[in-house]
């Protein structure tokens, strides 16, 4: 079909003036959890199972979830730790997928840190590790373990590293974790009352190096 000038004008008008409805964040979260079932799913599932006709699908999901719980439990980590690993991993993957890495895109730690402090009820340590080959890309807010957390974004060559930071409060964090899931490496540690989770697809040894650098230079 030939599109004439009038059609092109109308097309431009629609493109620029009509609403484009982007998926709301909570829908994205729900669909994302639905697509990648984690051990959290059974509780959350009850909300979308209100559609009765989907009981069958729900049951199939529950089976899948139970299986995945069974499999992951074999690795010998406490269930809460395991759930957190999956949450951290999901957040990392989501940040890459939706092209929403940074709320504040800056390689300047003195820009990123105040921004995060002003949006959170704590002030996460932010270090620029560019000289060591891990440039800071920015930071954003994320949500883990039922609370708002800081996510710092670093780069290693073409790989992205997300570092999630939040205060420990009175809850003990458990032993440091070093894990590999779905091809991603994860590490957790505590320092000065903060819990750190680093996740990336870089090699485990590289992530170790990154952790060491960050611990040394995070200004604490």
């Amino acid at each position, binding site marked *: *079909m030939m599109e004439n000038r*009038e*059609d092109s*004008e*109308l*097309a431009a*008008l*629609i*493109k620029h*003036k*009509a*609403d*484009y*409805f*982007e*998926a*709301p964040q909570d*829908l*994205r979260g*729900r*669909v*994302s959890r*639905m*697509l*990648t079932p984690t051990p959290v799913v059974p509780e959350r599932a009850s909300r*979308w199972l209100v*559609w009765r006709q*989907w009981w069958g*699908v729900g049951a199939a999901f529950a089976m899948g979830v139970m299986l*995945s719980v069974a499999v992951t439990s074999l690795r010998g980590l406490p269930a809460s730790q395991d759930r957190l690993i999956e949450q951290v991993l999901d957040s990392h*993957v989501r940040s890459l*997928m*939706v092209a929403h890495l940074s709320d504040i895109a800056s390689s300047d730690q003195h820009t990123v840190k105040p921004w995060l402090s002003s949006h959170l009820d704590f002030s996460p340590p932010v270090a620029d590790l560019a000289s060591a080959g891990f440039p800071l890309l920015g930071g954003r807010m994320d949500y883990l373990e039922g609370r708002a957390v800081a996510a710092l974004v670093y780069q290693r060559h073409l790989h992205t590293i997300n570092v999630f930071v939040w205060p420990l409060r009175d809850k003990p964090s458990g032993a440091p974790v070093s894990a590999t899931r*779905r091809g991603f490496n994860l590490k957790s540690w505590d320092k000065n009352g903060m819990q750190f989770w680093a996740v990336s697809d870089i090699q485990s040894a590289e992530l170790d190096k990154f952790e060491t650098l960050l611990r040394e230079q995070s200004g604490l």
Partner: protein
Amino acid sequence: MTEQAQQFEAVALSYLNAAYNLARWLVRDEQVAQDMVQEAYLRALKYRESFRGGDMRPWLLGIVRNTCYTWLQQSKQREDQVEFDEERDSENCELIFGQTESNPETLAMRKQESLHLNQSINALPAVFREVLILRELEELSYDDIAVVAAIPVGTVMSRLSRARAMLRAALQRGEIV
């Protein structure tokens, strides 16, 4: 989860905005649109075997569309049954827009224009609304639109042409809503 499954899910998730935009324009309600998208993604998971590879977007949007139509029918919104009057609606209308200058005075007018445009699109029957949205906002090819709407490519073209004519007429009729 296998790697293949992961990939399916990653690709499906990357079309979430397109899915929601289509659903939102079809059902014209934020909450219903969210429900539609969630239900459509459940269906997509359930029938993932019927996806034969290639571009997932038209396949996925087709499921979203069908989910929305089921809801539209159930809620007795039979608007797409409205008779289309070729003579009346295909008049060669002058565009009322296009002369807008980019000076600050026109800002308020532009806002009004957007509102009016949205309302005019929303007033179109669903079968015309969807081809416009898929073509102009999602920039799908005619072939892909044909897959989404389950109609021949020729029908896509004629519907698109009618949709444009109807929209032009609506825009001209209600210069100020």
